[in-house]
């Protein structure tokens, strides 16, 4: 029997980062299954430690990014993802996956809307971690870089004060070092109260190796050949292996 933790990568029509994300999960040690949403059933989560929603444009971003994907997921499996989280499971949403997790109410209340620039932004950004104990961020330095590629990545809350509370209270696990897209509190990533659900707009799967960095001379704060994205997935893998060995 396979003793590596299992990751389930959910793919919607329009998801386009599943191959890179699956590669990143496999690189750190997960057994990974890419599952089309049409085949999603509650029993598919049995034996799974991590559910990943990767980037792309699920359902063409119709209505708003992540909306149809969240409705279809809810229609197919109801509150199974909430139960999965409550039973110790981990959920990661990257870019469009982050948008879907917010729509599913698996993260603190917020919405990802059009960038303040009004444009699609594809660039590298500097990030600052505010939740050093997050299982998703533990092996990353205080500041690191990842690429972003989104038109609707500006996190807003009903009031700016709500976002500030996320920054002060730890729900905003990851922030941009600069004002990149107009996100309230410069929030780039949110975690839920359990710390096992995390969504972020930047793409860690696109910076697995240092050679993936846009600057060929870049060395970065991490040792060895791996880039910051690798260490995000590796942190998570480590946390899950340790949690499994404790239980």
């Amino acid at each position: 029997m396979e003793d590596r933790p299992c990751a389930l990568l959910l793919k919607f029509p329009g998801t386009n980062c599943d191959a890179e994300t699956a590669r990143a999960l496999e690189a750190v040690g997960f057994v990974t299954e890419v599952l089309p949403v049409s085949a999603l059933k509650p029993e598919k989560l049995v034996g799974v430690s991590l559910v990943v929603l990767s980037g792309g444009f699920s359902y063409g971003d119709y209505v708003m990014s992540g909306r149809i994907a969240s409705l279809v997921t809810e229609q197919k499996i109801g509150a199974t993802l909430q139960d999965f989280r409550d039973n110790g499971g981990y959920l990661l949403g990257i870019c469009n996956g982050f948008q879907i997790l917010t729509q599913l109410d698996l993260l603190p209340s917020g919405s990802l809307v059009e960038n303040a620039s009004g444009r699609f932004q594809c660039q590298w950004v500097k990030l600052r971690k505010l939740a050093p104990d997050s299982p998703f961020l533990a092996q990353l330095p205080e500041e690191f870089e990842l690429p972003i590629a989104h038109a609707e990545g500006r996190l807003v809350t009903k009031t700016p004060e709500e976002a500030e509370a996320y920054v002060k209270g730890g729900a905003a696990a990851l922030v941009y070092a600069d004002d990149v897209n107009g996100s309230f509190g410069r929030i780039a990533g949110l975690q839920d109260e359990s710390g096992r659900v995390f969504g972020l707009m930047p793409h860690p799967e696109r910076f697995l190796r240092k050679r993936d960095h846009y600057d060929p001379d870049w060395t970065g704060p991490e040792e060895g050949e791996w880039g910051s994205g690798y260490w995000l997935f590796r942190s998570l893998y480590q946390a899950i292996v340790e949690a499994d060995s404790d239980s």
Partner: protein
Amino acid sequence: MREIYEISDRFIEAGDANGLLYEPLAEAPTYRRTRRYEIEFEGDKAALEAFVRKTLLDEISQELHSGEEPALDGFSFALDYGMKPGALDLEKEAILNYHRGIPEPGFELKELRIRQRIYLFGGKGDESDRFVRDLCNAAIHQWNVLPGHV
């Protein structure tokens, strides 16, 4: 029965309308975009509104307006455009498919018409021809221009 819902964004500022055109205007208006849903239905109106709120509206970042009246005022003109009947509208199909999957929706959705509405503010008045030319595709779109509502 027929209901009209228009959804506007709370956080998105008016943008430079020259960004919508291939050739910039000397005196560019600004614009805001909304989405307009015209729904023919039979059944419970409250169930329809609940469906609209759950499916089409983001309660955090958007506002819902009901009825014919434009959601915004003070505009020079507005342009509505959307897919022609018979043209494949994937957004409409996604919404209808979701509705079909609801066990007891409480209403029957007879027709759904989705329109993007662009409100233009300022500029030299009615320059709608330029926007129709650059935003609408006669092969697949239907459109109409609303006069100013200052």
